[in-house]
């Protein structure tokens, strides 16, 4: 596909030859995640997280399908059916805790995967399409997770559905009608629960489809790497199998260990106690919060408390959606020809500031809306937008980048793959590798 030195698929067994001539599916797999895909030799552990995200999706689909065999999407019985799974279904508690914790694991892994892309400039040409499809996957994940959280029909499920569909009522004129259309009523009830269940079952398969496109688009230019310098020849790469399958095996093991520790010893740690109270349309919990992976966005939503031309509510909703949608434009906001932050001293600092900012936003989003937290949220939300829309474009045109190594191999030989290169340092801008 990508590199001329890629190993060609040559099935030895006549049966595999027979299949390959008629349906080259084994060839496709071989070229995608087998020995037929040459990968830069200097990838660090951050590059494990794509495979881990795939593993997390697989866990969610498998546990989700079996849970759907027992769950009843009916407002009167949904809560009881989840408890039935927890108490009476064989291994039901295990399956449900895996599914609930698996959602959190999926988001942890994907957030690290996204940060990897930001730090090493994986969104830059020629990989824009990989990035765009990734943002689409992220949006689909958020929708799926939100609808899945509604299904147990606890207090947080119900009020989460109420609040999130309330976003749409911020749209002028037609907003309220859209909200009623989404819910199939004036408040979350049977109609909303049933359609959320249907979509919650459908969307993961859509995600799987977009992931195939994501990987397809990745295989055209091949993987980025910590230096951000493009592959120049065979010596820069190793075949995906066995080199990265072995490395991903370690990654999957560590991922499963963290997952198991949560499932077996702290299954409710990432959840909220109120969701063990059955939904009650007449009583709102004292402190509504979404699941932890939405906290930064929730903080952005809540930070807009002042009307200015538009009402505060609309600003909040626009900003919350905008905070994700702006990621679509990142490849064009950041014009720096150098990819990896390792060679971009200023960008590197700002990307760590962004991490701290998003963590603070998350902390604020998970806390009660007291004035002190509100102030912190307003500052950090402002930084978020300024970072992407103002700082990144300015930095990318003014920054003096460090000299790039001539090739991945050279960087590896210097013993500092991805780190700055002292010996070959030349002042001034360095053209991108390709």
């Amino acid at each position, binding site marked *: 596909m990508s590199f001329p030195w890629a190993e060609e698929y040559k099935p030895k067994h006549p049966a595999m030859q027979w299949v390959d001539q008629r349906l080259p599916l084994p060839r496709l797999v071989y070229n995608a995640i087998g020995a037929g895909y040459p990968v830069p030799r200097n990838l660090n552990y951050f590059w494990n997280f794509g495979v881990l995200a795939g593993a997390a999706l697989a866990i969610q689909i498998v546990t989700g399908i079996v849970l759907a065999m027992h769950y009843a999407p009916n407002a009167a019985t949904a809560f009881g059916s989840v408890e039935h799974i927890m108490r009476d279904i064989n291994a039901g508690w*295990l399956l449900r*805790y895996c599914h609930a914790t698996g959602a959190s694991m999926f988001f942890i892994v994907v957030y690290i995967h996204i940060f990897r892309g930001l730090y090493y400039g994986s969104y830059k040409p020629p990989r824009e399409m990989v990035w765009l499809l990734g943002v689409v996957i992220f949006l689909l994940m958020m929708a799926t997770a939100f609808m899945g959280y509604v299904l147990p029909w606890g207090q947080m499920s119900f009020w989460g559905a109420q609040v999130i569909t309330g976003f749409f009522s911020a749209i002028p004129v037609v907003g309220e009608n859209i909200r009623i259309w989404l819910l199939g009523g004036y408040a979350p009830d049977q109609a909303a629960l049933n359609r959320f269940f249907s979509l919650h079952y459908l969307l993961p398969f859509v995600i799987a489809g977009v992931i195939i496109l994501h990987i397809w688009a990745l295989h055209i230019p091949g993987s980025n790497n910590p230096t951000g310098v493009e592959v120049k020849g065979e010596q820069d790469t190793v075949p995906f199998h066995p*080199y990265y399958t072995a490395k991903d*095996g370690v990654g999957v093991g560590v991922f499963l260990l963290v997952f*198991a520790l949560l*499932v077996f010893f702290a299954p409710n740690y990432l959840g909220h106690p109120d969701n063990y109270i059955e939904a009650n349309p007449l009583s709102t919990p004292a402190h509504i919060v979404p699941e932890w992976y939405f906290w930064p966005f929730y903080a952005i939503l809540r930070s807009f408390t002042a009307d200015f031309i538009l009402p505060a509510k609309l600003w909040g909703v626009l900003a919350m959606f905008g905070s994700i949608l702006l990621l679509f*434009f990142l490849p064009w906001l950041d014009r720096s020809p150098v990819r990896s932050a390792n060679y971009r001293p200023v960008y590197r600092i700002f990307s760590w500031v962004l991490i701290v900012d998003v963590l603070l936003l998350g902390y604020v989003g998970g806390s009660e809306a007291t004035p002190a937290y509100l*102030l912190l949220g307003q500052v950090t939300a402002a930084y978020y937008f300024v970072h992407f829309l103002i700082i990144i*474009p300015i930095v990318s045109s003014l920054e003096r980048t460090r000299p790039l190594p001539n090739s991945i191999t050279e960087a590896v030989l210097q013993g500092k793959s991805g780190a700055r290169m002292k010996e070959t340092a030349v002042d001034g801008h360095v053209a991108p590798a390709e």
Partner: protein
Amino acid sequence: MVSLILRYLNYIIGAAFAFVLLLALWGTASELISNPPEETAEEVFHLEPMALHLQSDGPFGTYDLRQVQRGFQVYKEVCSACHSLKQVAFRDLQKIGYSEAQVKAIAADWQIEQPGVNKDTGEAATRPNVPADRFPLPFANDVAARAANNNAIPPDLSLMAKAREGGPAYIHSLLVGYTDPKTYTHDGKALMKEFPDFSVPTGLHFNPYFANLNIAMPPPLTQEGQVQYQDGTRPTINQMAKDVSAFLMWAAEPNLTKRHATGVGVVLFLLIFIGLTFGAYRNVWRGIKH
């Protein structure tokens, strides 16, 4: 002009969001300064649950079945008059050490019967409980529950230990935490001195472990010996409160012991697996600089 705007659109949008946020920040800050929030009695005097140590705590925790059985007795003789346990079935009691015959007897003797239908007339009727039944509701519906309880519905207890911050510790503290607001002090501050206007609304009861300090439930455990334990444990109020917390923890998470045991096996398996894959990874990459 249009192309100029488009070219700098990101700066315009970024500045707009930042400006509105600064405006909001200004509003929040000036409100905070001009109108500092007053501390409420709840903020000052609400207490976090006291520490409670149960055998089910920690990664290797298991249920102390004798304690859970005592707690069941407290539920049966005290709580069940008002609080349902609708997710739990009588047959589940076999998991806390009752025999099949004992469970059958407990179900058959249960004060409230299962709703059913009169076979001959088709009218609503009741029948005795059998082990397959879930615990029957003490009130037929929410309206009846409200009417009998001063307009407050006693919540279902099946998941209480997971549905409150602090879990069993919260339940224990709440049960023993009733006190007189007039003499109540915390951190050297007296409630009536800090908030002279504080009063407990009629029908409510003062309890600093409850979020807004006033709870509708009257103190359920009022004297030692309210429940007579078979195993010789002295039924102090504190003991009964602990035992019923342990029982409710079991009711909320009946598979905890199995979960912990499975978890230990899975973690050990994964540690070996990680060791093997790491060894395989090092060997595959042997001699290749990266």
